[in-house]
């Protein structure tokens, strides 16, 4: 009886605190710069950190303040830089932006030791595998951010360029100058 009432009290406490926090988040919401939010929506959102900021939200603030260039996001590439420039009404020179070929992470089965570290850092939950089990990357969910590559102790995870298949091939641009 004592046990049950204690559990009930704690559950009640948890629920009421949760509700309170939820409402507080609504009522005391800090108004942020709307452009920051808009920029954050444009960014890939993988929190890969390749821009040098601790995540996409921080990068969005930096871009909005003008601390970071619109070309700061390597995974976004040329298209994202263009979109950001249009949003911020900037004229940019895109000739310096090198389009990084899209990559995907792949597990080398011979090297994987099943340490279960990579599933924990994957921002899109694209890696499956329990400890002492072979891990695998779900192609459709992988964004090629490379966080798993950094944490893999055996270099089993590597990024590979996405190969063109018949389903993804498109006509190239005519090269002839005129």
């Amino acid at each position, binding site marked *: 009886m*004592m*046990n049950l009432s*204690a*559990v009930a*009290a*704690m*559950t009640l*406490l*948890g629920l009421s605190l*949760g509700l309170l926090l939820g409402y507080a988040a609504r009522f005391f919401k800090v108004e942020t710069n709307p452009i920051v939010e808009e920029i954050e*929506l444009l960014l*890939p*959102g*993988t*929190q890969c950190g390749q821009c040098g900021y601790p995540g996409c939200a921080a990068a969005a603030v930096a871009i909005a303040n003008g601390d970071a260039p619109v070309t700061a996001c390597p995974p976004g590439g040329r*298209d994202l830089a263009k979109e950001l420039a249009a949003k911020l009404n900037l004229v940019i020179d895109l000739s310096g932006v090198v389009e990084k070929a899209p990559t995907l992470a792949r597990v080398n089965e011979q090297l994987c030791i099943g340490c279960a570290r990579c599933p924990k850092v994957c*921002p*899109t*939950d*694209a890696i499956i595998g329990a400890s002492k089990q072979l891990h695998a990357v779900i192609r*459709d*969910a992988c*964004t090629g951010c490379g966080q798993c590559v950094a944490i893999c102790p055996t270099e089993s995870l590597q990024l590979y360029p996405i190969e*063109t*298949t*018949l389903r*993804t*091939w*498109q*006509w*190239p*641009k*005519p090269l*002839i100058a*005129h």
Partner: protein
Amino acid sequence: MKLFRFHGGVHPNDHKRLTASKPISLLPIPQRLYLPLQQHIGAPAEPVVNIGETVLKGQLLAHSQGHISAPVHAPTSGTILDIGPLTAPHPSGLPIRTVTLESDGTDQWTPALEEAIRDPLILDPEEISNRVGTAGIVGMGGATFPSAVKLKLSLKRKIHTLIINGGECEPYLTCDDRLMQERPAQIADGIRIILHAVQAERAIIAIENNKPAAIVAMKATCAHLADTQVIVVPAQYPMGSEKHLIQTLLGQEVPAGGLGADIGVLVHNVGTAYAVHRTIRYHIPLISRIVTVSGDAIRNPQNVEVPIGTPLSDVIQHCGGFKTTPARLLMGGPMMGNMINNLNIPVVKGTSGIVALTSQALTQQLPKPCIRCGRCVDSCPCGLVPLEMAAHIRKDNLEKAAELGLVDCVACGCCSYSCPAHIPLVQYFNYAKGALFNRQQTKHRSEETRKLIEQRKSRLAKEEEAKKLAALKRKAEKDAQKKSLKSQADEEVTS
């Protein structure tokens, strides 16, 4: 019947005399057949046979996957040698999963799975669509869209007119022409079956006026049919385009980005009608097709009935080989066909022709600057402004090109054909369509990624919450236990 006109179009030399008067010859079964698992628009087929297995003619090799797909059948009896990637009959030259079948020379049929149908017109319309689907029939004009999907959609959307496309406006190609000349009764029967399958009121067989023999044959066959009419349309490229054929016959435009079904019309190629006849009447899946082998580099140009999967080299050899070394090889016609650089690729369901041209037949010149003469505008059958679109695409301003109506371009090539400056206009449009599609895919992907990240965040938050709750619970239990122990001890003390 009053005919209408569509704007633009071109009148290239049709070169059809090379093959139009020669009968269709039959290609002997080649030693090896190569059957790509994707010969259609949609998802690739999945093999149901294993390496080393013996199969009979007409047996299912790979079944369709998903809504838009088509199965692949064995064109002859033999042994499966391999299932793996081989060069695809595609301009990219990339590999595609292919079943290699070695013929045993007996060409033995698989026993029919279903009973012969005496009268297909008493069958349920949907049953006909299903049988067309399991026979692997796709649009034989070259678009290779699975026919069953089109039939089912048409039945649902209520079609009033079925148009049978005998336009064949591509230069050099005469496979539909010969089919209409030699097998008009079979085509007419196929049309009756399709009419029943989509419950349409009437059928119109449209034939360009440069095929007099086909017109005579089809008219004689359809004379006694009240609901089927043969209409002669002017020879004007791209008459065989679905939208332009509808416009010419009915005077109605298919809405931009829409289908013929939107205005109650279904268009099928004569080759498709013939394939439907063979399937419904005789249970013959789509395992062969008629291919025009033509061009001034071929010694003996003619139409050949070829088992699907035959290497192009075998077909060319059957036609006497090359007279001279060809400067260009095409799969399909010269207007919309694709350049190929290798004869070790197979004939597939959508191969309407193999054209080998010498350098005399080619008029390739280097592009010069656009002088804005507007000939491309005059010739565009879709009412677009190719020169403007190409200028934007050249500067990678794809959005502008899309605003100007890039999606309505049917890639017929009239603009490139008529451009006096030899600017590769349609090539620009093909590139831009692909690039825009890729961009859309990327956008879709990043949206999906965002969703995944959100899901992960909420999962982590939930886990955290659960952990906290569990810790609290454990603590509470421990406290309770302690208390009860203490009270017990107290009781013991007091007692």
